């Protein structure tokens, strides 16, 4: 099993967001979770990724119970690309020593190569403050390339296409295919049609998880 969630409950500001969640995801399996906005989907992913500490229950990701260890095993793409005011290269490597071939491979898989080839400075192009010099779709594909370059066992997707228009979404979805190929995936969205490629789909309602 790649992910095991046992008896997970979480609340903040006096509100019970997740209530007694149980979920097991097999290695290489793709699981989708659908739910309304504010229903706790992002909170669940933040708990799985180790960004939030578990209040009650347990989460195991690739054999790691501890939050810091879980963070090492996951790559996550969120609604907002979250780019650093740095070059495309630095946004992909995040300052780690990643060789050129792996960076190129990540760009290929994230459908970035063609666009980067048109830039005078290529991978060393500055993306601007808050990614202001690139479009939303390009920013999201850079974020996907970053996730690919991390080469984590588990991929978490938090509505990565919801802020994009239909044309841009198509390119990002193609990039996501490059990211999720052969990985264990937990994908949350408020739109069920986005999750059609998942092996199993669940519904998160009232803090509880139900089969779709």
């Amino acid at each position: 099993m790649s992910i095991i969630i046992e008896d997970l409950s979480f609340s903040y500001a006096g509100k019970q967001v997740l209530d007694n969640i149980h979920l097991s995801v097999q290695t290489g399996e793709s699981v989708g979770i659908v739910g309304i906005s504010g229903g706790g989907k992002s909170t669940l992913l933040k708990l799985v990724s180790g960004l939030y500490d578990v209040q009650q229950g347990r989460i195991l990701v690739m054999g790691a119970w501890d939050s810091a260890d879980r963070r090492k095993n996951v790559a996550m793409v969120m609604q907002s690309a979250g780019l650093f005011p740095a070059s495309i290269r630095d946004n992909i490597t995040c300052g780690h020593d990643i060789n050129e071939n792996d960076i190129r491979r990540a760009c290929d898989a994230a459908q970035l190569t063609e666009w980067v080839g048109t830039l005078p400075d290529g991978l060393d192009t500055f993306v601007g403050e808050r990614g202001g010099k690139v479009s939303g779709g390009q920013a999201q594909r850079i974020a996907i390339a970053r996730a690919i370059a991390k080469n984590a066992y588990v991929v978490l997707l938090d509505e990565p296409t919801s802020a994009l228009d239909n044309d841009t979404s198509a390119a990002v979805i193609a990039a996501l295919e490059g990211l999720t190929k052969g990985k264990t995936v937990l994908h949350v969205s408020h739109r069920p049609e986005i999750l059609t490629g998942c092996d199993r789909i669940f519904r998160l309602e009232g803090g509880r998880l139900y089969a779709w």
Partner: protein
Amino acid sequence: MLYKRKFLSVITICASGLTAAVTLWWNTQLSDIINTVSVGVSPPKEMVFWALVTMLVMGATNYIKSYISGYTCEGMTHDLRMGYARHLTSLPITEVEELNAGEQLSKLQNEISGVSGYLNANLFQLFDDGIRFLSTFIWLLFISPTLTLTSNLPAFIIVVYVFWSSKIIGSATERSQTAKGQMNQYADMLLTLFPIIRLYDAARITLDGYTSSVKVWENQTVRLERTKAWLMSLSGVLSSIPLLFLFFVGGHMVINGVLTVGTLYIFLNLSGNVSGVLMNMPGHIAAFRQFSVNMKRLSPHVLIIGKGELQ
């Protein structure tokens, strides 16, 4: 801002004019006392009485001037802060979401504080200096045109230097403020990207980025302070020349019997009102340029409704 507080501003300027007039009158009396004493005669009681009355009046006018100018400046500072707050609250939600908290904080910490500080410390001081300069210069010209012109001629030459140096200080200040804004913006960005930094263990790259923005700010600030120090110290050396001229030419006129000791005393006592004001101009102009740079950055973010009225 001045337009909105026009009544109090006019009163403050009038109080400055009154204070300058009383000061000149006080110097005339002092000159008479010195001239009387210098010929070995005790000053009459009436002369001493009116000198004392003038001193009291001078104290009263100074108090009124300080009180009204302080009150007016505080009012203008309040108008500025309210204008900025109104601008923020009038923005559509989509624009508010796009605002960078670090940049806004930077504006509050730097520009608005700078403008408030300038208004409180310098604005009416500038008017006051201008009034003192003009009234004293005209009066001294009336007493002795030769001494007035010879002692103050070097000061006018220094003014040219002052304008040149203040321009350099102004642009250095702008660069330093921009670098500070970018540094704060980076700090705010770190908060926004905190989840990404943790997930991708990107502390090193963000630290490098922040260190580099701090370095840019540090370099600009050091450069600004160095430029300021260099220009100001040269200005300090130049500022002693008018006083030397005053002693040299004035002393020569007293020795030749063209000028009384009391009149020379007036020139010495009031040299601060003429050449002193000119000598202080680098500071005033540098402060004013800093103020105008801050205002330029702030003005698009201060809501102005109606003719010249800050709402």
